[in-house]
């Protein structure tokens, strides 16, 4: 078995491999040089693992490419994998998220994009269809762009049901219980400091994650606040107590241990640097009641930040945790975020990191 990390940066994609249970890593790249890779996924459900990349050429626009030989060659669909229907008058600006569905739906891949749109593929990511139920939602014209753009940046299909959860900046969390047909906002309890009242929707959620033990339990890292829901998003409560800062971009949950999640706090609102310049991962084992800091192997004097998709977990045992920084460093933990080793340094700014164990 090999452990693989896909590292999407502002100027290309790197792959890192470990054949000794995530102790040492070999870096391979750049692939897709000079292209911004804002979304990447490793689809390990296929006989040959597929690396899917949402890329953006500076001049030539966005597209989705894939490699079935771990980066040796890349393919894309002639007419574009993600292509707005003519009647929408819209054009794809950026792919923010590529999310393979469950093993039981082996060819289904979801994409979250800018402008705010959700897409579903039934052919492993070669072509996608716009999810009209969300595109036609009456709220859509009032969704605002976050600082990074008008993006659906989180897509969470529930493997056991037809539930799909999405999060967007700045529209908040929306949930469909019928596979994408009907959608409702679920943001109660989440404040929005940039708005005068707590709204039904419009919150600037940065990332959400589902608990391993209970699909009704989710965690949210917002623009100013860390929250948990225990009822599928109908009510959220703050779990930011005990954190050195309530701002940050990513939040990651354990794929195998209930109650376990990680965040990387940044001092906010304007600074957006690690507290005291000390890059740290905060872990909870009790669904956000308490947090402990992990700093071993992470740099001191680090005034960088970690973006919303540059933090992830693998599904090995024990869980691996991975993060990439805007100053081009990647760190890996093989012990559930206790200690970290350096995978890469001096890459372009890291936009996304994904990891998987492959044959």
């Amino acid at each position, binding site marked *: 078995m090999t452990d693989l990390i896909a590292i999407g940066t502002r100027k290309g994609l790197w792959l890192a491999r470990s054949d000794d249970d995530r102790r040492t890593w070999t870096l391979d790249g750049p692939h897709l040089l000079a292209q911004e890779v804002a979304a990447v996924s490793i689809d390990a459900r296929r006989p040959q693992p597929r690396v899917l990349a949402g890329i953006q*050429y*500076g*001049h*030539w*626009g966005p*597209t989705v490419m894939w490699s079935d030989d771990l980066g040796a060659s890349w393919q*894309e669909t*002639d*007419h*574009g994998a993600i*292509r*707005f229907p*003519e009647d929408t*008058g*819209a*054009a*794809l600006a950026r792919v923010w998220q590529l999310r393979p569905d469950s093993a039981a739906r082996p060819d289904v891949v979801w994409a979250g994009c800018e402008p705010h749109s959700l897409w579903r593929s039934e052919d492993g990511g070669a072509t996608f269809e716009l999810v009209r139920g969300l595109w036609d939602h009456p709220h859509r014209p009032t969704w605002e762009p976050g600082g990074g753009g008008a993006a659906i940046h989180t897509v969470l299909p529930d493997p056991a049901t037809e539930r799909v959860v999405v999060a967007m900046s700045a529209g908040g969390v929306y949930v469909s219980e019928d596979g994408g047909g009907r959608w409702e906002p679920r943001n109660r309890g989440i404040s929005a400091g940039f708005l005068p009242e707590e709204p039904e929707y419009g919150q600037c959620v940065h990332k959400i994650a589902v608990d391993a033990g209970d699909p009704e339990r989710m965690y949210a890292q917002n623009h100013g606040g860390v929250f948990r829901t225990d009822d599928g998003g109908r009510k959220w409560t703050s779990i930011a107590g005990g954190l050195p800062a309530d701002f940050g971009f990513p939040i990651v949950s354990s794929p195998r241990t209930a109650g376990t999640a990680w965040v990387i706090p940044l001092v906010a609102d304007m600074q957006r640097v690690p507290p005291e310049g000390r890059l740290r991962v905060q872990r909870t084992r009790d669904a956000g009641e308490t947090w402990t800091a992990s700093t071993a192997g992470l740099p001191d004097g680090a005034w960088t930040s970690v973006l919303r998709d540059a933090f992830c977990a693998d599904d090995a045992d024990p869980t691996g945790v991975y993060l990439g920084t805007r100053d081009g460093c990647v760190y890996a933990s093989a012990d559930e975020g206790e200690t970290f080793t350096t995978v890469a340094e001096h890459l372009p700014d890291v936009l996304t990191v994904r990891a998987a164990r492959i044959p």
Partner: protein
Amino acid sequence: MQVVLPGVLADLAGGRRELDVDPGGATLADLLDTLAGQHPLLGRRIRDEAGQLRRFVNVYVDGDDVRYEQGLATALRDGTQVHVLPSIAGG
């Protein structure tokens, strides 16, 4: 008509930087439609799916930037030469 491509797009047109294209109409849009029909990937690099020129792609018809002419409606003449160039962008 002759279409001149930057080197970075040549692979999408069979490795050629200069293409002879029958525009199938009188405007730049007609020419680009024909080109996209022959080379869909090339077409997507130049225009988005709504048909608009990408922001950092410049197209010149006989040396004139079409943004200061009639855009995609710019008329073609016999022997027109169309240049596709990356704009100044990046970093």
